[in-house]
């Protein structure tokens, strides 16, 4: 990884500067960790939340540049949140412990990261999502 001489460490990079990123994650500690990491990367974190209804409201209120989704919100695997995000054209990626086989066909082409995830990699992929949307 390229080191930014101005800050002297990779953590000093802020690839998500100014981006509003929604975190949908069932696990409290993992959500908190990701929120901290994204915050350090410059993102304005929306959430985190584990409530599907809340996600719906947050997405509909707009202004979200990208989202990170766990597909298990306490009730087993669910893809409804993902489908409503696709409908509203919010770029998102899955972060999940589930194997690829459980994904329905219509969502199998979405970017997917498996737990436990490397935080830098997560930030990179989110930055790609934001970049793809901007361009």
């Amino acid at each position, binding site marked *: 990884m390229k080191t930014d001489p101005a800050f002297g460490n990779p953590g000093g990079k802020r690839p998500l500067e100014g981006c509003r990123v929604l975190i949908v994650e069932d*696990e409290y500690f993992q959500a908190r*960790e990701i929120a901290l990491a994204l915050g350090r990367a410059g993102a304005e974190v929306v959430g985190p939340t584990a409530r599907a209804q809340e996600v719906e409201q947050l997405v509909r209120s707009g202004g979200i540049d990208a989202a990170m989704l766990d597909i298990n919100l306490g009730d*087993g695997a669910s893809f409804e949140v993902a489908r409503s995000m696709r409908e509203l054209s919010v770029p998102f990626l899955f972060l*999940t412990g589930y194997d690829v086989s*459980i994904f329905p066909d219509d969502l199998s082409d979405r970017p997917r990261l498996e737990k436990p995830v490397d935080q830098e990699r997560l930030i990179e992929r989110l930055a790609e999502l934001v970049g793809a949307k901007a361009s």
Partner: protein
Amino acid sequence: MKDPSAWPPGNSTMARRVREFDWEGHPLGPIADWDREARSVLMMVLGAPMPMNMYLGPDLFLLYNDPACELFGNKHPDALGRPARDVFPEIWEAMGRRLEQVMAEARPITAESLPAALDRDGAPRDAVFNLHSTPILRNGEGQSIGVVTVYEEVTEPAITQRALRKSEERFRQFADASTDVIWIIDVETGQLEYISPAFEDTWGVPCSTVIEDRSKWGQFLHPADYERVMAAMPGCASGNIVTTDYRIVRPDGEVRHIRDKGFPILGPDGTLTRIGGIARDITERKRQEKAVEDSERRFRTLVEGIPQLVWSATSEGECKWVSPQWTEYTGLSLEQSVGQGWLEAVHPDDREEALGDWRHAKAGGEMNGGWRFRRAQDGEYRWFQTRATPVLERGEIVEWLGTSTDVEDIVDLQERQKLLLAELQHRVRNLLAMVRSIIRQSAEGYEDVDDYVAHLTGRIDAMARTQVMLTRRAGAAIDLESLIRDELARVAQDERLAMAGPSVQLSAKAAEVLTLAIHELATNSIKYGALGSEGRLAIRWFVTLRESGEWLEIMWEEKCPEPVVEPSRRGFGTELIEGRVPYELKGEGTICVRPDGLLAEIAFPLKAGASILEPGPGSDKGHER
């Protein structure tokens, strides 16, 4: 040179007499000098089985054969060599005229229905003959040198006897060739008049055994059948047709099954003279009948015993038979199922495919389909694996035999297995992610490594205990009181501890969150609170009804004799209760440190689910294939 006295050859009476006759002194002269034609005809006459005469020369000297002797009565043997006129003066007028005509015209003449008084065996009687007279021609043409006459007796008794002899002969041929045992009993003597040779094959004893003594027949009867057969036998004698099935035991020990049909034979005056019978060996038929019966019973038992639905179809794929299980499952009777009727039980969405599978089967010689059949009992459509094999006869498909196996449960299990595997992966990865988080969280605020390791180990152990309980069996719910006791068992003495609350079953998720929270509260209590001093700990819980449903409320209350020191920073326990409980259980959590102790309150909605390890009643039935 042949000895002239040795001619004509033959052993018959008349051949001998002709040889010994003194032809030297006779007008016809020595036989050796006779015309060749005369000698040939003589040979034929002497060898013939029917009466024949020949008349030679202008005086019609008489020669005849053995069968003709009977016609001549006491005229024989003097008639030989004498003129016919002298032998038959009483009928000469007609006879002479006929013979003269044959000689003169050199053509055959038949005289029909000529009456003749016969002196047969010394008893004179009237007889009727057809006479066929043929000229004997020198060199086969021209001049007649004599006449040959064949006698055909047409007197009634003769005809009847001839017919009878023929009929008897035919009967014998049939009877002798028959594989059935044909027997005739003479009623007067009570003995066997006839029994066909098949008896020897069937009974394994010579016919003579029973011909000599008919009662010996009884000793071959199977002891179990003896009484019955003996009782049935008089039926024939009273004029009935009696059919009896019985077994015989042959001398070689073999048992055979016999079907014996006896019938009365009446004489000309209508009285019973004989009893006839036909005994057939039906051992092989019995064996085959039993084999077919056994085979059918086995098939039926198999078909009705197996859980599969069994059926057969024509080579055109039209149903023609269904097992009782089919009818029981689908509610369609055989009549309703035949032809295309069975399609009624197939899920409407699968019918096209079913018909397609059949078309393919006819072309490919095998049939394998997966369709849903409707269960009549509750209307549920269940997945079946349907297979059929063609029954071939000389390479042609004559019918299809098939089974339909309920694979709904297997499909369910496969589906469930897939979900379980996915859930397992999810759990393992989540656990590792959780462990990583705990390691990071735990690291905050520890300076002493031993202390850090001890706390970390305690937390990981607590997580491990939850996992053990959750995975002990699928669908295991966790009892709240057991969970708390498990966490406190090693650290709290009973007299300091008070627990009260109803029986509550926790979901997997709630158990995971609560275990760690209780563990952390207990650890802190030992370090700073009631469990580390002379204090008391009371844990109480209630189930309350809120707007969103049932909630569980837990109160953890510590009372200490000395004032409690409040930790200066927000610890891991506080995170668990005030952060994780609201976040993951959609509940509420507070910790309040008081001068005389501590009060922790945890509340969250009770709900089932959270994992497919605990499937709810509404699990989806519509499988994708």
